[in-house]
């Protein structure tokens, strides 16, 4: 369970990759290079990075529309992701997905899904397939706390427990479903307890602490892999940006004070402080990683900038197999 020095540094590298990649996304969005709806993950990086460190190749991952970080962590080409956000032919989905539906089947990333809650059933289905084939793969399913009031989520929970499916439901509770605080949308605020009705293993974690995320998700992953049982994890997080690029980060439904206080709990800075205190990382290594990621991200932007628009002939492709 203990992570090696290299693994710890890799957690830092991946969180920083998401951060810088998405800062570039924000820039590109304001330059109108990226269109549509664009939801940034900035602030919540620890949850994806810690969780995805706990799985192995062959496992499946589903998430909602805040989906740039997950494929980046799973090894998808940042250039292809950026080109997809640009809607270019070099995009990972050939310019047909955009920000909200990124997919990299080869790496087990089964997609961003943009109708709230529905992909919890798809994830249970992938877990069903693993169990059906008697494979030991597990499925991670990420969604926001805005999804947990939806009927389909409870249908998926019920069948996951009923059929002992190896799926880990990870609710990233960032407190606001778009602009509506959880207290105004859910009858109970302790979201993990939504698993009670199904007697599903459930707990909450500090989703801003990547080491805690890794340790706790790993436990659930091991249970799913070895015992074929689902778990419901509520990861308490905070998004530093608005709901989407068209939503201000504060001043509307979140106060400046709240936002500033939360920003001080930056998961990336916190990890660096911890690792430097433990002698795993120092300022120099941090600078090296930053330079390395800077190049990755600027190469991704350059790739997207150079990628041609999709040809008209592709419009009718990919509808049917």
């Amino acid at each position, binding site marked *: 369970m203990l992570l090696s020095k290299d693994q710890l540094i890799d957690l830092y590298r991946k969180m920083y990759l998401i951060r810088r990649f998405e800062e570039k996304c924000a820039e590109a969005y304001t330059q109108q290079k990226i269109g549509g709806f664009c939801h940034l993950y900035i602030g919540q990086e620890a949850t994806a990075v810690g969780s995805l460190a706990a799985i192995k190749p062959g496992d499946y991952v589903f998430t909602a529309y805040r989906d740039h970080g997950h494929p980046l962590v799973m090894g998808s080409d940042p250039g292809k992701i950026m080109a997809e956000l640009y809607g270019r032919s070099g995009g990972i989905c050939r310019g047909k997905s955009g920000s909200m539906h990124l997919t990299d089947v080869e790496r087990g990333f089964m997609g961003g899904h943009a109708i709230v809650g529905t992909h919890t059933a798809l994830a249970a289905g992938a877990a069903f*397939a693993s169990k059906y084939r008697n494979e030991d793969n597990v499925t991670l399913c990420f969604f926001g706390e805005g999804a947990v009031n939806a009927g389909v989520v409870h249908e998926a929970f019920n069948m996951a427990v009923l059929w002992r499916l190896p799926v880990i439901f990870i609710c990233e509770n960032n407190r606001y479903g778009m602009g509506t605080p959880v207290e105004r949308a859910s009858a109970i605020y302790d979201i993990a307890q939504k698993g009670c009705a199904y007697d599903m293993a459930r707990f909450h974690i500090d989703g801003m602490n990547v080491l805690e995320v890794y340790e706790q998700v790993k436990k659930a992953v091991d249970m799913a892999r070895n015992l074929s049982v689902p778990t419901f994890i509520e990861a308490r997080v905070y998004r530093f940006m608005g709901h989407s690029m068209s939503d201000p980060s504060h001043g509307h439904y979140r106060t400046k004070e709240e936002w500033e206080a939360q920003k001080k709990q930056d998961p990336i800075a916190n990890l660096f402080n911890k690792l430097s205190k433990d002698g795993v990382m120092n300022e120099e290594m941090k600078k090296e990683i930053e330079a390395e990621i800077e190049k990755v991200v600027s190469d991704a932007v350059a790739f997207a900038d150079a990628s041609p628009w999709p040809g008209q002939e592709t419009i009718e492709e990919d509808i049917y197999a």
Partner: protein
Amino acid sequence: MPEIQYREALNQAMAEEMRRDENIFLMGEEVGFYNGAYKVSKGLMEEFGERRVVDTPIVEEGFAGIGIGAAMAGLRPIIEFMTWNFSLVAIDQLINSAAKLRYMSGGQVKLPIVFRGPGGAAHMLAAQHSQALESYYCHVPGLKVIAPATPYDAKGLLKSAIRDDNPVIFMESELLYGTKGEVPEGEYTIPIGVADIKRQGTDVTIVAWSKMLFKALEAAEALAKEGISAEVIDPLTLRPLDEDAIIASVRKTHRLVVVQEGWPFCGVAAEIACRVYEKSFDWLDAPVKRVTNMDVPMPYAKNLEKIVLPSAEKIVQAVREVMYK
């Protein structure tokens, strides 16, 4: 050739395909221990066991989604809706997931999945349980829609649907389950997207599918006695539609009546009529007529239900009108 029931034909198709391919499984309400609400899955639990014949809770959206997720991960699910009326609870999964994921992923996702069950009116089931919903699903690129009328077509097309690598909407009928027809004992399939001329004729083309086919054939028989030779075409697959077969027939007969159970507004019959107008206007000797349900929710009362639905008499009348007789 042995005569078997429509439900037995479907049962044979599923059993044969499940024997052939371990990745195929059946999931739905009462499909297993109960042997199917309409006994279409009779004996499958006994032969294939609980792993491959999966009884679900009454949660159409949830198990439709589980089926789609399983297909994304490489299995080949057959998802049974006890009736297509209940699919409306799951329509988000069918339209936003099944029909979209391949496209949105740029062709990465493959979804070999069949959604099947009975649609349309049975007898006195009132407004929520009597809907013919093919128009809903035909509207959506990414889906294929099949609605066979005979046991032979049902078996051959269900086998093709199961082997297809795309989401297929397969519409059966409560009133057809007990009907009998000849089905060969050996292996066969029927291609998706190819219409079948069920009766040759020269004076008028009647297009009809699912149980309306039999109303159309009954009408054609009556018309023959009046000296009118009707050609009856069953499209079998509604999406992709074999419009070439329909247009070829209309260019021969110069007259068209389309029979569709279900509402007229934005219906499949309207689409067929439109395509014929667009591509064969000059061949027509009369405006196209549609025979559909009346534009009302289905009433419960027996006499009213009969009035709402298409009938052989209404088809005969429509043919007389396009013949100017």
